[in-house]
């Protein structure tokens, strides 16, 4: 069973409206950016409906002839609307954008607009907590071992980028030394070439080493002692790697 997580009043009203029209034969469209949960919402409310993508015009037309209840995703990709007959059918379409608002207005009885995640503060917080719980459980990390002050939420691609940014942040706390080495090994194996590889890839471990050291110990003098290298060498490396 699909679940749809939201604390937003606006989306709860959309769900309410959908639930009221669940048994009616009306056409509805949900419009909003990619990855804001349009398809999940449609599947959550109409779990038994067939799903067809607007990428395939002829399949959509075919399925409209056969089914009374249909979810059409990526409606914006349909090119010809004249053969689409929505009479006495329960249609739920989703679209990332609308290129012809007048046409959509004519075709659909219910037009819902879902705002992007960045405009739904209550949902960001709600989803963040869900993603943190899921990621810590999957990666087997204790929540209290993670420094969430440094967590930067990426909302550029709505829930997908949000989940990824949280997952990657938690992943950093779950890795062992061997796993980190293995990641670097894989990366270098894939990319190493040319004739300046040593200098080029040294930065992958030198840079985090110096940055973490500077953050932890504050002064270059103290860090050079801890690293066991000359202060001038450290300064040179800070300059080379462009470290602030």
């Amino acid at each position, binding site marked *: 069973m699909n679940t749809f997580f939201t604390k937003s009043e606006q989306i709860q009203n959309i769900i309410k409206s959908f639930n009221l029209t669940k048994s009616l034969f009306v056409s509805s469209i949900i419009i909003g950016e990619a990855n804001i949960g349009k398809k999940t919402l449609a599947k959550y409310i109409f779990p038994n409906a067939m799903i067809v993508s607007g990428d395939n015009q002829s399949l959509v037309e075919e399925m409209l002839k056969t089914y009374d209840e249909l979810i059409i995703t990526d409606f914006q990709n349909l090119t010809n609307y004249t053969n689409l007959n*929505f009479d*006495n059918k329960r249609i739920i379409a989703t679209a990332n954008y609308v290129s012809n608002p007048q046409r959509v207005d004519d075709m659909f009885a*219910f037009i*819902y607009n879902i705002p992007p995640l960045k405009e739904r503060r209550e949902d960001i917080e709600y989803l963040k907590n869900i993603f943190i719980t899921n990621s810590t459980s999957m990666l087997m990390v204790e929540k209290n071992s993670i420094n969430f002050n440094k967590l930067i939420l990426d909302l550029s691609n709505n829930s997908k980028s949000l989940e990824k940014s949280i997952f990657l942040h938690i992943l950093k706390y779950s890795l062992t030394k061997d796993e980190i080495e293995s990641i670097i090994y894989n990366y270098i194996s894939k990319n190493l070439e040319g004739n300046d590889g040593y200098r080029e890839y040294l930065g992958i471990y030198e840079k985090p080493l110096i940055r973490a050291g500077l953050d932890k110990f504050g002064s270059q003098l103290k860090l050079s002692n801890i690293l066991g290298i000359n202060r001038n060498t450290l300064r040179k490396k800070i300059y080379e790697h462009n470290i602030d």
Partner: protein
Amino acid sequence: MNTISINFESFVERDNNPFILFNNQGKIIYLNNSAEILFGYVSKQELYNITLSYAPKTFGYKTTLINLNYNSYIFHSITIGYENEEQISIRLYNTPRINPIQKKDKTKLIKTDINLLLEANIALFQTKNKNPIKLLTDQDLPQFKIDQNSFSKLLRKVLNSFRSSDSMDIYLKLLIGQYIIIEDKKIYIVELGVSANGRYCDEDEEIRRLSIDNQIKSIISEYYIKLEIPLIN
């Protein structure tokens, strides 16, 4: 020349176009049947003011093209006339109603709980608007046949025209004592009214078109929209 005196009063009395005769104080001396009903929707003073404003400059009669709307009454012109200083008359000409030429496809009509459609549309409206809504409905209204999709479009547009109002009043009720005859059957009428302190009228034409499509009588004013929906079962 022989003149025959004919009393035309009974013709005027039964005329479908309202006729009112005022004295010079604005008191009504005579009004026909149609005018009597009209006064349910407009004040005497307002009609008297219109009469004086559009009166001819001197004795005689003057017809002016003017659009006047009073509830379901729509007039396209008026004739004002006076032959002495004591009396002045106004006659208002009804705009003919155009009967829908297209018959509604009966297969599209599905028995529906109108309260459900109304609530769903209010929920949709509230996804975009924060206006407080006062709702008074009759939950006991029986289900009746309606084109769910087309009627929902109409409701969406009606509510949307109130998108910037401070607050809205919505009611849904059975019009007691009123009915229409369709195929020799008495069909009761349900009235859906939405009112506020103002509204957008950018989609009024579309609202009229969708109403006609759905065999619904729409009464549209600056502050309210009323839909008279036949309760077909």
